[in-house]
């Protein structure tokens, strides 16, 4: 049964390959694309249910080469949830793209690249091998370079160059980090590394290697001070792609931090977690939100908020207690839902008014009330207003910061929350209130078809907030599993 672990990777990779052949046939391509995305989601859900009902973890040795010599795929609660959410966000963005994407872009491999991207993200979540993680990162990044640059506008070319060059540097460093770690531990299998390092007396060079890895993942995850590429790179691409990136890509970096910093790098928690990660979390939140406050463009504000929210997500890793980790996990998924929906809504605004410059928008509430109210829900959620999901993530993290007497980080989190609200209000007041600035013809723009793909995400931010008993309970289970690495090790090495 554990063969089904590869389905969330296999389906998109096959779909992507097939779709290369179908680029000329527009309708068939779309049909196959939609079908495959839904199939991936169904397979992921199936996998998640299977894992959840069977021990909460399973490993698959590819080619039946025993771990740690071959490559293993490991599905634990965190990775299957990531896979489900990835596939879901993929479906939403894809159906949104059907309605908004330029026909030419679709002809030039949007669909195959989309599926390769999903392959990379799902693979990164499921792999249990450090080098294989690197390879999946490459698949994901190459697809993202391609997606971000296709269309070839001047802006895209300029910004994706920076994106690419920074990420290539990160990849090189990643490779170096893997070499260091292999040098020390003599293995690449994450469970095996963790097993070998467990109970080690002297940490030696490990914390430094840990920091190298942290820098790599922080660069991918757009944390302070390595996020420079993000705001403009995300600005240039079509909104369905930006939303996919904003929701998923940076999270893969954070996922890798969560994975390695719970499984492998736990030698010097006081320094790497409590000091370094918390410090970086604080600065990431603050500088990201300042970027948002300084902007007056819908998409740019949202792009900067990706950065600031990532800061929140890593607080829990820094505090490294069960509740804080659960807060991180909860926030992780909350942010995927909220950010993707906000970015997609900004695309709808652009579709109506033809701009995302807040100086040129206004009065959308009057012409498109459904969009305005739907926008307000994730906007309030991201600012942490109860009973939406953003509140509970923030609540757990602040509660745990105060409990651990990390008053400063709690204060920064609160302060940044206020500034987040400020920029969300800025959007709401300038885009939805005010005098109508778009033409009456634009006011007739139908939007129901593009709102529909976003509805599941908006619904989720409400439901995991109101149903926090259940959703946070699940986050708690994930966190407890993560904080007990022996579960992971035993399931992979079967000792």
């Amino acid at each position, binding site marked *: 049964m554990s063969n089904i672990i590869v389905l969330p990777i296999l389906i998109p990779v096959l779909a992507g390959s097939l779709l290369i052949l179908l680029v000329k046939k527009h309708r068939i391509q779309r049909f196959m694309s939609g079908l495959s995305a839904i199939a991936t989601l169904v397979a992921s859900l199936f996998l998640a249910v299977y894992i959840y009902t069977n021990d909460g973890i399973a490993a698959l040795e590819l080619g039946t080469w025993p771990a740690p010599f071959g490559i293993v795929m490991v599905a634990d609660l965190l990775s299957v949830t990531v896979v489900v959410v990835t596939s879901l966000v993929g479906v939403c963005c894809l159906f949104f793209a059907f309605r908004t994407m330029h026909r030419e872009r679709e002809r030039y491999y949007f669909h195959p690249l989309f599926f390769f991207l999903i392959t990379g993200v799902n693979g990164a979540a499921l792999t249990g091998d450090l080098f294989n993680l690197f390879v999946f990162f*490459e698949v994901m990044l190459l697809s993202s370079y391609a997606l971000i640059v296709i269309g070839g506008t001047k802006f895209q070319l300029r910004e994706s160059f920076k994106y690419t060059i920074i990420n290539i540097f990160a990849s090189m460093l990643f490779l170096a980090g893997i070499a260091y770690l292999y040098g020390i531990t003599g293995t690449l299998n994450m469970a095996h590394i963790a097993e070998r390092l467990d109970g080690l007396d002297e940490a030696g060079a490990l*914390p430094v290697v840990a920091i190298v890895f942290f820098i790599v993942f922080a660069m991918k995850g757009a944390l302070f001070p390595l996020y420079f590429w993000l705001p403009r790179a995300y600005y240039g691409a079509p909104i369905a792609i930006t939303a996919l990136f904003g929701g998923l890509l940076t999270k893969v970096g954070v996922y890798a931090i969560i994975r390695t910093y719970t499984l492998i790098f736990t030698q010097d928690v006081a320094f790497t977690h409590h000091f370094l990660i918390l410090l970086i979390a604080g600065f990431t939140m603050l500088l990201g939100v300042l970027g948002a406050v300084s902007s007056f463009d819908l998409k740019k504000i949202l792009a900067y908020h990706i950065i600031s929210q990532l800061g929140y997500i890593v607080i829990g890793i820094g505090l490294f207690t069960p509740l804080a980790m659960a807060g991180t996990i909860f926030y992780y998924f909350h942010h995927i839902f909220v950010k993707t929906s906000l970015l997609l809504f900004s695309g709808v605004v652009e579709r109506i008014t033809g701009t995302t410059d807040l100086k040129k928008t206004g009065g959308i509430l009057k012409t498109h009330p459904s969009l305005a109210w739907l926008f307000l829900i994730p906007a309030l959620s991201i600012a942490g207003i109860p009973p939406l999901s953003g509140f509970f993530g923030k*609540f757990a993290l602040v509660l745990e910061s105060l409990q651990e007497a990390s008053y400063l980080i709690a204060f920064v989190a609160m302060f940044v929350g206020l500034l987040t609200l400020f920029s969300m209000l800025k959007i709401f007041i300038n885009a939805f209130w005010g005098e109508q600035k778009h033409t009456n013809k634009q006011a007739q723009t139908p939007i129901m078809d593009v709102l529909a793909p976003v509805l599941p995400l908006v619904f989720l931010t409400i439901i995991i907030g109101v149903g926090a008993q259940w959703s946070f309970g699940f986050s708690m289970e994930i966190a407890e599993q993560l904080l007990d690495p022996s579960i992971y090790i035993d399931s992979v090495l079967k000792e």
Partner: protein
Amino acid sequence: MSWLHIFILFPLLAAVIIPILFKKIPRVHTGWFVLVVPLAVFIYLLTFLPMVAGGETAMYSLPWIPRFDIHYSLYVDGLGLVFGLIISGIGALVVLYSIYYLSKHREALHNFYVYLMMFLTAMLGVVFSDNMIVLYLFWELTSISSFLLIAYWYARRQSRYGAQKAMLITIFGGFAMLAAIIMLSIMGETFSLQALMAQSDQLVQHELFLPAMILILIGAFTKSVQFPFHIWLPDAMEAPTPISAYLHSATMVKAGIYLVARFTPFFGGAMEWFWIVTGVGLLTLLWGSLLAVKQRDLKALLAFSTISQLGFIMSLLGMGSAALYYGGGDEAHLHSMAILAAVFHLVNHATFKGSLFMVVGIVDHETGTRDLRKLGGLMSIMPISFTLALIGSLSMAGLPPFNGFLSKELFFTGALNAAELDIFRMETYGALIPIVAWTASIFTFVYSIVLVFKTFFGKYQPERLEKEAHEAPWGMLISPLILTVLVVVIFFVPNVLAHYVLEPMMASILPPLAGEFDIHIEAWHGFEPELFMTIGVVVLGAILYATLRKWIVLYNNMPRALSITNAYNSGLKGMESISRKVTDWHMTGFSRDYLRYILVIFVVITGASLFLLDGFSIDTANAANINGFEIILSLVLVGSTAMVVITRSRLTAVIGVGVLGYIVALFFVVLRAPDLALTQLAIETVTVALFLVCFYHLPRLREKEEGDGINVFNLIIAGAVGLLVTLISLSANGHRLFPAISDFYEDAYELAGAGNMVNAILADFRAIDTLLEIFVLCIAGLAAYALIKLRLARREQDENQ
């Protein structure tokens, strides 16, 4: 799930069908349907009154998120119930009033009533919740509905400004309150208010006691417009008048008062609590009354008057908290009079201020203006409105025979008692309290008179009004009339109110004294200092009103730049400009800057931790010997790298890169890895060849560029990165803790039938890596092809078709 749970959520649930009613039944004003909701809640809440008057309380709990100890639990006691009655009662009157105030033809009534119902649920939730997190949830919901209601006419710039200001300030307070709630839960290990109160004795010494107190007070003060957070209220007057009457005078702004009252059993008795609450309250009282006098807009005048009156109630709660210091006995009862005054005035204020707002709304509605300079002489044209305004104003000024007189007298009593206190270091400043209270009362008298006289007396100036003035329709007058009747009735039968309403409220605020109150409110209690103070207020107030023209110019000398609103505005601007500076400073848009930052940070963080953590130790025991051949190769490697960087010719650069690659291949040869060497050679050859093919199409490098020559800073960074990577490599190599797993692969032939171990790894043991790398190449190919072929020049337009 009890009926109370349902009734609190009832308005929110009802809100769902309001838009449908608005669309489907446009003939009937939607307000008539909505009216049922607050009325039903009011009647339902009345059924609790006998129980609560009997000194009992009730708790209804419903688990929501037990994991966090978050329950939808409701607690009914005197304090909550009276607030609930005020909220639903005035809510019903306001809805009735709004039916005549807002046109069913022109206004977006569905929005209006949905927001209003949202607010009703939120406010009821605030006053009945026992769980602090749920309380916080409803608290934020009041801010949001207030935000939406203030900007109900969202096309107006001022409305949007007011809404944003109110939202930012109240949510700021809300966040402070959330932090306080979390601290309290850490102290008491519960989110239940009642469970927390029970532990107040043990927790006074806790280190978080004071921070939690201050944060709770910030929450309360922002909501209840206490100085210096009062600045949002005047701008909130952009809301339709029924909303100003309801949210911004009678209910929402009293949520802070409620919070302070609710937490008095916990924090009361502490010196800091006494001083902060009393001090801020008095300051707000005085400041509000001083500024109210100079207002020319009727609603602005009422806004400042509300600020001042809320300060009045707040300061009384502070003074009364001294009763908890004593805990019992005569002293405690003496100071409990201040609490009595507070709750009494709370009720009175809701009646007279509610009616005044509605009358002002009528004046605005029927004349088209609220500007005192244009108004005047309306007494004969609008006699009923005039009567209502007069009664309301005189009650506000503290004159008999209206309820405001009684609570004002009690206020003086409380202030005089507080001045006598010999605890909390009151000896020095105690005398200030009655002086400030008295001064503020004089100005209250003045603005109350201004309100009535400038509007209804004087000369009628029809040419300056937008409409021809006439009396309002009866429907609009009913609500203020009911409130005005209450103003008078309460004066004559205060003790009925005291028994059913005030005593239960006091019992909630001062639990140690519960059941011992023997309240008897009298209008006449002899020639006491309070009476002389009232007479002084009237005399001095009348003189000041008579000489108003002479001294009102003093206000013009107040420097505008020093005002708090100005500080708020420039604070927001400053924040934006600082963030712009910070962002522009580091987000330069140049990849060379970004790379420089990233490398510097890499060097700093890893370098520092390498030395701090003592991870740096080079152990050469298992390192191979270095032979001369390797040294030569390394030197060539360095040389060719330098050549690539320094040269200004593309050809040289390409050759340099080629050399680099071949040297690496030679290294593989030296290190006895022929497969790798062959692969590397093949790749290098192809790369260089491709480079040379593209070479023709590339633009020439510029001969001389800015920053040419050696950039010392970059050189240092590059050197440092190289050095650090080497050091970590050596360090990691020196820490080889375990044998590598590669021995396994040496049996490749037996395992996989492959004679070549590297091939077996690539194509079998780790085949998936190889497969995926093939996909990586494929993606790169697709990307390159698409990039060359597809050029969307006008992306924006195209994307939106």
